């Protein structure tokens, strides 16, 4: 349980009167107090967000294998590696937990903030153009979460539990699951490509605010480095989703 400031004061007063009773200090008291505080909750959002941003780079490097015009040889070798390397598998479970924690904490903050704003709303709202992403992080996040669910059902579930045919790849001396064929099929569907590209735009807006914001929440601002963080953040938010979106567009327009 949490101990309030008043409780701890009375605890100290009691102890000074009766020295046989010593105050008990639990690891959980100060640590949970930190995690449920306003800044602690944001700290969770920031750390999970940074981990997810690092993951996106790794994910993109894998997806770029699809652009090799080799009938999926490099991509299938990559998917086999990602699903069989013990270190990668361990990190992948951490990743699933991180996505859920980021989403759950984000929704919790959204609800708390709505309660703090109160029941009565402004009749006139002034929204600056640079606040459009930051004011809508929860909505953008919900769209991204739906995208992730569909994405995992379509590719991750097929890879893990589906019955994909086996193919030979040059990197291994045994056949591996052929994930390339369902990916290529999905990328030849106009509606799927459209859904994918729109989702990448949504992710771009989420990252546009999220990158800088994660540094700000950790208190990492500095006259010398903050301008650089902001520039890198904008570049990251534009280039990473753009690179993801290019792959289905290339498939749809050049290989279908």
């Amino acid at each position, binding site marked *: 349980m949490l101990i309030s400031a008043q409780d701890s004061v009375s605890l100290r007063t009691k102890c000074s009167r009766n020295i046989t009773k010593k*105050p008990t200090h639990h690891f959980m008291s100060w640590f949970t107090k930190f995690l449920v505080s306003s800044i602690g909750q944001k*700290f969770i959002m920031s750390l999970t967000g940074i981990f997810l941003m690092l993951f996106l780079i790794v994910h993109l490097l894998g997806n770029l294998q699809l652009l090799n015009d080799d009938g999926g040889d490099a991509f299938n070798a990559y998917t086999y590696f990602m699903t069989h390397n013990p270190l990668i598998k361990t990190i992948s479970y951490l990743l699933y937990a991180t996505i859920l924690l980021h989403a759950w904490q984000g929704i919790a*903050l959204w609800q708390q903030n709505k*309660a703090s704003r109160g029941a009565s709303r402004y009749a006139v709202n*002034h929204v600056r153009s640079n*606040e459009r992403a930051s004011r809508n992080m929860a909505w953008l996040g919900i769209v991204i979460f739906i995208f992730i669910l569909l994405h995992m059902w379509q590719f991750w579930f097929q890879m893990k539990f589906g019955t994909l045919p086996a193919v030979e790849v040059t990197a291994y001396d045994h056949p591996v699951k052929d994930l390339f064929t369902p990916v290529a099929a999905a990328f030849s569907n106009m509606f799927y490509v459209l859904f994918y590209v729109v989702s990448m735009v949504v992710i771009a807006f989420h990252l546009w605010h999220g990158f800088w914001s994660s540094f700000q929440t950790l208190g*990492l*601002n500095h006259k010398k480095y*903050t301008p650089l963080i902001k520039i890198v953040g904008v570049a990251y938010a534009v280039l990473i989703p753009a690179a993801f979106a290019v792959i289905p567009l290339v498939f749809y327009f050049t290989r279908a």
Partner: protein
Amino acid sequence: MSNNMRLTLKIWRQGGKYKGEFVTYKLDNVNEHMSFLEMLDVLNEQLIANREEPVAFEHDCREGICGTCSLVIDGRAHGPMKGTTTCQLHMRHYKDGETIVIEPFRAKAFPVIRDLVVDRSSFDRIIQSGGYVNVNTGQAQDANAIPIEKDQAGEAFDAAACIGCGACVAACPNASAMLFTSAKVSHLALLPQGMVERKKRVLEMVAQMDKEGFGKCSNVTACEAECPKEISVGNIARLNREYIAASLASETTN
């Protein structure tokens, strides 16, 4: 001197016979040299002459330093001008025939007392929880006894410029008081006089801020844009830094 500006005012009325609603008033003789609060004074004189209840609004120094005036004017805390309070806003920024919507600061931690007056005592309780320094009694010491580097003193002064008006809370989509609390924590954390209570201060002020029901900062920065004293969100990063360090690295275990 032009004395003939006509305005339509949509003002939030709450308390007495008003349940919490906008009431429209017409004002025919607004002078462009009036301040916004003087314009409201003229309205109230007109209401009193008509035996109507005047509009309750807060004001004190009327020169932008006390932090008493408030109001959200056309969706913006302290009105449309940058770096000014409502009392420093003048009617020359409005045109003849305009409609102005005037609302109170809205936040769960700032309940409306009447019309445009809100209870901002939650800010006082945040200050009481840690916004002070302990000094020994006795003879006042020499003014230059503690040397402080010029830039450091400047930064502390920029944070100390916060007048505690609450515009940051009013402008924030989350009704967060982080800009206010960060200014108060920064101003003392940057000075040698503030070092004694440095860790205790940030822990207790953030705890009180949370207890008052203010929202959680999501770095929208609307607070910085609306702050009449142009307090920087860099202070919020400092508050985060101070709080994370005090929580995770201080010897306080409860």
